[in-house]
């Protein structure tokens, strides 16, 4: 993809589908790693949970495209179906949280039939805000917000100056750095908070899966 100034680039439904499918593949590949992170400071199911959820998302996309009667999907609609699928199949904390993330992102795009990359970043920002609202957390609590929040603000900063791939690459980089930065944190939200000081020294599984989602976003839009 040529290095266009990213604010003017349109995000198609096909690009979102590609992102979701690549996310499903990556989460499956790294499911065991995520579960092991969750064994250390949680209950050892995070990789299983997100793998189950995104496998269902991929199946939902397959089912939809195999159905000749299905209406042509748009970005907001796909994000909403993703949210519903995650809420229905994941459970645990990450089900409602990722569900809310995609639901709020979808709502933010409801009025944009042809969203730009800027709209998408704003939508994901709304998604992260939704996570913060229902979960009551904020960056520094050792949760997925520690990957999402820095990623989206890095993207926002790059938006006017950078090309699409740069914008999403800095977001993915920031998400990965944010996930790594959870290691020294003491958890204040989610199951890891029960551990108190013993949560220090381990990377948060949800922040890690969020970084995987953002890297998949960058890679799929670039590809």
């Amino acid at each position, binding site marked *: 993809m040529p290095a266009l100034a990213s604010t003017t680039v349109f995000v198609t439904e096909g690009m979102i589908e590609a992102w979701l499918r690549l996310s499903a593949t990556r989460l499956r590949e790294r499911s065991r790693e995520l579960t092991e992170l969750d064994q250390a400071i949680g209950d*050892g199911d995070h990789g*299983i949970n997100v793998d189950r959820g995104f496998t269902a998302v991929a199946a939902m996309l397959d089912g939809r495209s195999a159905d000749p009667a299905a209406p042509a999907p748009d970005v907001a609609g796909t994000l909403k179906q993703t949210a519903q699928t995650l809420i229905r*199949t994941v*459970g645990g*904390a*990450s089900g409602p949280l990722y569900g809310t993330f995609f639901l709020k992102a979808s709502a933010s795009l409801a009025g944009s039939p042809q969203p730009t990359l800027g709209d998408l970043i704003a939508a994901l920002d709304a998604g992260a805000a939704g996570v913060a609202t229902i979960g009551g957390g904020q960056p520094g609590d050792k949760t997925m917000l520690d990957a999402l929040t820095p990623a989206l603000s890095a993207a926002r900063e790059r938006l006017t100056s950078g090309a699409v791939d740069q914008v999403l690459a800095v977001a993915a980089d920031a998400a990965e750095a944010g996930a790594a930065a959870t290691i020294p944190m003491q958890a204040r939200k*989610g199951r890891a908070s*029960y551990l108190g000081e013993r949560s220090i020294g381990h990377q948060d599984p949800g922040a890690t899966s969020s970084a995987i989602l953002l890297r998949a976003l960058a890679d799929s839009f670039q590809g």
Partner: protein
Amino acid sequence: MKKLINRVDDVVPESLEGVGLAHPDLVKIDLEHKVVLRVGGPRQGKVGLVSGGGSGHEPLHGGFVGLGMLDAACAGNVFTSPTPDQMEFATRAVDGGAGVLHIVKNYTGDVLNFQMAADLVNGDVEVASVVTNDDVAVQDSLYTAGRRGVGATVLVEKIAGAKAEEGATLDGVRATAEKVNANARSMGMALTSCIVPAAGTPTFQLGDDEIEIGIGIHGEPGRRREKLVPVDEIAATLVEPIVDDLALSQGDDVLAFVNSMGGTPLIELYIAFRSVASLLADRGISISRSLVGPYITSLEMAGFSVTLLRLDDELKRLWDAPVHTPALRWGA
């Protein structure tokens, strides 16, 4: 991993099917939603009780569906909260017009999913909820997820179930449930880890002479790791913070619930009960009701938890009221 299963993915549905086959007089299973329903429901005019949570804690919750306890239980994947659509289905299925109480253990996932379910039935079914949070191993704080819900959940389900069976209103049942939760505290420990079937490996590793104090019911790490000591000492470590937190003192009357984490056999559990009884006797606290056995477990984990509930006449009456479920039965 050695388990009595067929396929990892079938663990929860097949176990639910087994419950239905073993207790057809008490429960029916909705396999699509993975919900255990009391036969003959919904009961007109009776407040419905719905609970649920991750699987792996059996008999909680499905084993407590029946007369005088739950009307429905939603089963999640192992150690993973069920989803809002399951809870929505259960809530609608048990509503007899008097509203439905959600009994929720305080975990982020359970709380969020039950909240979403309540939103989904909003306007159709009146829903109240009680969140159990009795685990003193966890520091209670506004700035964290707070204490976990553990053993008190069993007692809330029994006692609120009896209250609902008496014909109390939704507010009345909720108030009773909250009273039980407010007067109960728990703490647990583990000798061994458990193995989540889909993970296939132990959630944590303990040395041959190590125990985990303050364990939760998902194999999540506890307060600290210690060397194995005699059970009298372990019991003291668990009982003291409970007694302190409940401010129990001489002359108080409690229900003592000594619970197996799943892999601990009764011969050991009764030794632990003896330790607990003697610690309470030392403090002049009398045990007027007791419950000993595997009631809220963590798969095959070896270990035990202690829950104490401060009793008054109402709680005793409701505890003694008839109950007839797969896992708890008396008076009926």
